[in-house]
């Protein structure tokens, strides 16, 4: 049973997180900040896509470092 649960957990960890925890953390932070501040704030039309590009940039930078 423990082995089955461990395997189940490992599968979902690999499916969602794997080698890119920064993407998951970045998206969670972005959405949490958005829930607090975005409603009706027109600046978020710019902030949201820019934040997505920043998360991608950070992840690419980390990916480059890992591959060196």
């Amino acid at each position, binding site marked *: 049973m423990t082995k089955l649960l461990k395997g189940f957990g490992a599968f979902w960890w690999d*499916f*969602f997180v*794997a080698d*890119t925890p920064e*993407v*998951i953390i*970045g*998206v*969670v932070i*972005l*959405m949490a900040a*958005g*829930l607090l501040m*975005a*409603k*009706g*704030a*027109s600046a*978020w*039309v710019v902030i*949201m*896509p820019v934040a*997505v*590009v920043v*998360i*991608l*940039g950070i*992840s*690419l930078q980390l*990916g*480059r470092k890992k*591959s*060196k």
Partner: protein
Amino acid sequence: MCWRSAIEGALVALVLLALLVFAFGATLGRLDPAPLRVVIGSLLLMFGLKWLRKAILRAYGHKDKHDEQAIFDREVQDLSKSSSMGKGLRDSVGFVISLKGVFLEGVEVIVISFGAPSGRLGLAAAGALVTALVVGVIGFSLAKPLSKVPKNALKLGVANMLVTFGTFWGGEGLGIEWPLQDAFILVLLGIFTLVTVVSIPILSKSRIALERVPQT
């Protein structure tokens, strides 16, 4: 691997998917769409950004490009070794692989279908079914020419679309009022595609510059 076990795995996955939609579909339709869009948008963003990162890293040479045929041959060889099929027995590996593949892809389609027209489950299911048929027919008739399209270019395109829809739906769920309404999806797609297209040569140049630095 045995076709019978693979088909049985696919059928079990289809039954599980139908149960999933039956169990949660009606409930999801009655929920407030805003939190649902935040969750679906977040998932699309996570998957899309992971794919986009991998595809960009491959495009500028920091990750090996996939040789799909070699990967397929290797997988078949590995699966043949681990296959537990005996005379008159079922191939458990083929069953599980088929079940897992169909179930996971199905869950992705359900996630995308629920996100688009929240509260219109019938429309979403019909859309998914029509899409499956159209993609099947196109895939069957264009299998050869499509196999010549670079896989990484396809992945870049799909990843950009996932990131675009994730940003749009996630933003809608957060209460952002996008200008131009649904047409803003095209603006977002343009922005993310531009970022991708610009980032690849920049990263490639930085890699070449790094490679030219003499090693001490």
